[in-house]
């Protein structure tokens, strides 16, 4: 379980994350949704210790992230942020192999090779494995980064808008992949999503941020309601039950 206690972050006078307390349950997919500038990405970055918080604590399975050494946490929690420009020119296989870095410090074992090959296969990247990242399309590159995170094999996997750059087919397969990772391997996936319908169909738990505050949290059925969504996003919503999935329509 990830426990978030009273965390805040501000830049100058603007408060980006305002005194958020929440518990992200172990297992399954937890989505973080909310309008632009609600503090979703900042919250995720602070949970993953990429950004210092002004106040508060985050505990991952009881470990205080501010006091636990980086390489211990790197075996429990991984994060993929949105824009992943990198200077180092690596092949897909090299990149994915670095997912094992927390375990092998750069000296891969045969088991590491198995992990690498599995991750490549899981994302259908075998044919691109020896290509350089700067020779791939945005979507292929995004999948390579996700493969690296899978290869890191942590209990908690955090993704900031992983569907960016992906077309519909790849977006769906990415969400299926995350769900399978949660179901088959008992991983806990925390994901910032823009698309309410993906959040509705794939999440076990939804956290809603608005104006830097935790606005709501609960099961999809408790959140995906016209009046709630209108409150969150400030525009009219309809919600339809289509074969058990709650689909919201907001195109006006």
């Amino acid at each position, binding site marked *: 379980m990830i426990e978030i206690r009273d965390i805040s972050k501000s830049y100058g006078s603007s408060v980006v994350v305002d005194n958020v307390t929440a518990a992200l349950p172990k297992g399954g997919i937890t989505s973080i949704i909310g309008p632009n500038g609600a503090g979703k990405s900042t919250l995720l970055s602070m949970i993953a*210790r990429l950004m210092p918080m002004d106040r508060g604590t985050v505990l991952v399975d009881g470990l205080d992230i501010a006091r636990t050494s980086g390489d211990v946490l790197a075996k429990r929690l991984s*994060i993929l942020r949105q824009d*992943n420009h*990198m*200077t180092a020119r690596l*092949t897909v296989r090299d990149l994915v192999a670095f997912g094992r870095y*927390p375990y092998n410090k750069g000296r891969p074992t045969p088991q590491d090779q198995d992990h690498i090959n599995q991750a490549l296969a899981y994302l259908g990247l075998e044919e691109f494995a020896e290509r350089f990242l700067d020779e791939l399309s945005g979507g292929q590159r995004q999948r390579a980064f996700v493969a690296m995170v899978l290869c890191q094999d942590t209990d908690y996997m955090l993704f900031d808008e992983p569907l960016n750059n992906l077309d519909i087919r790849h977006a769906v397969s990415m969400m299926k992949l995350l769900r399978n990772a949660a179901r088959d391997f008992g991983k806990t996936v925390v994901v910032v999503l823009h698309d309410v319908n993906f959040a509705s169909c794939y999440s076990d738990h939804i956290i809603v941020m608005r104006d830097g505050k935790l606005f709501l949290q609960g099961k999809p059925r408790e959140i995906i309601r016209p009046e709630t969504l209108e409150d969150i996003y400030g525009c009219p919503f309809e919600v339809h039950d289509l074969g058990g999935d709650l689909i919201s329509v907001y195109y006006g």
Partner: protein
Amino acid sequence: MKFFLPALLITVAMAAISLFVGVSEVSLLAIVSGQADEKMLMVLAASRLPRTLALILAGAGMAVAGTIMQMLSRNRFVEPSTAGTVESASLGMLAVLLLAPGLPVMLKMLVASAFALAGTGLFLAILRKVPLRSPVLVPLIGLMLGGVINACTTFFAYRYDLMQAMGAWTSGDFSTVLRGRYEVLWVACALTVAAYIAADRFTVAGMGEDFSTNLGLNYGRVVALGLVIVSMVTASVVVTAGILPFIGLIVPNLVSMIMGDRLRHTLPWIALTGAALVLVCDIVGRVVNAPYEIPVGSVLGIVGSIFFLNMLLRRRFRAA
């Protein structure tokens, strides 16, 4: 890796040529057949061998230092001479010359390293504070910083009538390298080996701070280690031979284009190519205008600026 041995042999061959090119006659045949006179052996041991070793160590060291700088600054255009490192080391040399001219060369090098460390640290701090839209602006900032530091150096050198002495050591020139005056470069060699040992950390650092943190690497510590290596390598080269521009730019980019940036794999190539490039440029400088010499720094300046311009005009790097 299968091409590494041939490449190594080519470099060794160039080193051999470097041993036998010069005003004084030193012939391989005479040495092998035992007919070499005392003077010939003396030239070889006291001048040619130190010069060749210095070229190899300096070339390999500067190429590796350039690679590390590019990973730390996350910019393909950065190397010690476009980041204020070289100019800071020169200022340090001037300070030594003014305040404690009798210092042994090892201590001179340490003072120059301290200056280089401060200057490069300042450069990286500026980069963190000022978000830049275009990657091309990063070396411009470095060149400007270098220019400011250089202006300070020139001011004091002018005031204390040291312009000529300064000119002598800032133009990269190995003609004055003799036995007893290059050994500080073995420090650069040791640091190059240290860089290889830490190669994976520098690759991860080149993936960015977030990736490094995610993989459990202490980014600040890697940056500090890299800065120390870059500063000391640069300082030891500046102290012995002067400024070798562009090696840290040409070689890492060339190797990266062909093999990528997994440094565990590419650093040996980078070191070898750096050594070979400096050897060739030095041989050219000695041959084209014999019996006079063109400093290797000037030859590198010509080769490097052409490469630099070409890089600026390439689309891939503009996007990078």
